[in-house]
């Protein structure tokens, strides 16, 4: 178990040693976002911009304009929220080579409450042209995603969490932007998942097996661009889809899958996520249960959708 933000800190510091064009920016949260690891190693290439996210985004765009590869970090709510228009105008519109790595996404921020729980950032970023949106499942995939983001030329939004999450991928797992991964094979339905919900889906698939239900788990690390090939294959081969994300069911992975399948291969679907409401204070595990973001909900939804198939 490792938090994706910890993996980010490590990966960024490692990359910094390989490529001196990489610079990092933070808005007074470097200890939490883990850019402090990079800052300690490369103080000249780290810019703490203070509590001023809009300016941080613009500064990163300027650094990119002179050939740097800026990674900017803050909590997801402030990156995608406070910085939306700057990300749109100064970063995505000119296709600036800026990497936005937002930590503390979703409800697992916990006790800080609804104001700090970013449940719509993926939808916001996905709606911006030119933007690539990545939500890693675990630490290993995060490392690959950060490496891929650095190598990719253009704007990228990577959404990470606060808490330690179970491992889904083995060490050395290769991440490719835009490619989904079938983590568990199956024939009766497919869980299409992202972020920490992939681990929950793996657990759910194991339990369903005992009941005689064969569930496929398709992990989507890149919400945009969506791996249409694997999603279509899942729809055609299993005939039932349950999406799951630690995010609003509006506009995130569930929305992306529904939009795509609605036009190509209308399929029985359920979307597990946060149903158009704000978060609330609580411990992160309590909140995951409260919002039904766990294997139990996935099992229920799987049973239901398989029964509807017949």
């Amino acid at each position, binding site marked *: 178990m490792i938090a994706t933000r910890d993996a980010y800190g490590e990966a960024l510091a490692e990359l910094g040693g390989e490529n001196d064009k990489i610079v990092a920016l933070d808005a007074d949260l470097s200890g939490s976002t883990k850019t402090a690891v990079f800052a300690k190693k490369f103080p000249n290439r780290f*810019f703490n911009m203070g509590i001023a996210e*809009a300016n941080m985004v613009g*500064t990163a*765009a*300027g*650094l990119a*304009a*002179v050939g740097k590869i800026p990674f900017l970090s803050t909590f997801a709510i402030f990156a995608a929220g406070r910085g939306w228009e700057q990300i749109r105008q*100064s970063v995505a519109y000119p296709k600036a080579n800026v990497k936005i790595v937002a930590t503390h996404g979703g409800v697992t921020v916990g006790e800080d409450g609804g104001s700090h729980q970013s449940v719509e950032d993926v939808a916001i970023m996905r709606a911006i042209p030119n933007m690539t949106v990545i939500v890693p499942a675990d630490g290993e995939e995060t490392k690959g995603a950060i490496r891929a983001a650095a190598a990719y030329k253009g704007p990228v939004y990577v959404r990470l969490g606060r808490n330690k999450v179970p491992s889904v991928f083995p060490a050395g797992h290769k991440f490719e932007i835009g490619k989904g991964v079938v983590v568990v094979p199956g024939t009766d339905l497919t869980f299409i998942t992202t972020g920490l919900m992939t681990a929950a889906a793996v657990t759910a698939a194991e339990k369903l097996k005992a009941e005689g239900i064969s569930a496929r788990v398709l992990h989507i690390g890149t919400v945009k661009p969506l791996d249409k090939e694997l999603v279509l294959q899942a729809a055609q081969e299993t005939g039932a889809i349950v999406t799951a994300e630690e995010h609003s069911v509006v506009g995130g992975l569930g929305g992306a899958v529904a939009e795509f399948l609605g036009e190509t291969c209308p399929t029985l679907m359920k979307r597990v996520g946060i149903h158009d409401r704000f978060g609330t204070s609580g411990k992160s595990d309590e909140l995951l249960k409260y919002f039904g973001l766990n294997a139990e909900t996935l099992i229920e939804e799987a049973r239901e959708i398989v029964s509807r198939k017949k």
Partner: protein
Amino acid sequence: MKEKIADLEEKARRLRVAIVKTLHKSQSGHTGGSLSAIDMVCALYFHKMRHNPADPAWEGRDRFVLSKGHAAPALYVALAECGYFPAEDLMMLRRLGSHLQGHPDSKGTPGVDVCTGSLGQGLSMANGMALGLKLDGKENRVYAVLGDGELQEGQVWEAAMAAAHYKSDNLCALIDSNGLQIDGDVSKVMNVSSISDKFRAFGWNVIDIDGHDMGQIIAALDQAEAHKGAPTAIVAKTVKGKGVHLFENKASYHGVTPNDDELPEALRCLGCCD
């Protein structure tokens, strides 16, 4: 020097003519703020900045950010005059298929480094470029032209704070202070004065000038370059619509272009007979 100034004044006059003709042709765009900023843009492109129209991406160039992106015609006529693209392109301003969008677009226009137009974002990008250039040990300078109304955006002051904090002395902001914005007087819509005091309070080197006096503009740019340890703000008092009495000091000419009846008089004011 006197001769140089006279040359630049003549150049600015010709660029004003080009702005009026371009905006008359497009019948869409911003007249007042383009004419108020053009003397400074002219001094930068034809005197101060190192740049190479034959190689727009030349690494040794100084950078320019038109933060008040609606004054795009002022930038476009200067770029065309430099030879970044043919002058005929100006006649396609704001048209479908043209590389000259209503606001500067780095993806399409040779010589444009950053996209601007959403007010308040340019100084952040300019400071980002300044920080990056310094990191590489380069001597290149970054110039940003901002409007006074634009200073109402909070991000400008976030950027001002950061530029002073990081001692970006390769950064120079030029404030085109024409005193008018869409809804009227800047002082009445949302008073930003004193602009100079504000930048000074944020730790900037501040120079006040008449933004239509070419000698003062050049002297200020030289002083800015010589000043070490802090960024410089050149606060330039200007006249919206400067050079054409029909448009001067009229907020209504913020986003209005010369019509067929006004064109001959506007060109006459600018000493243009063709």
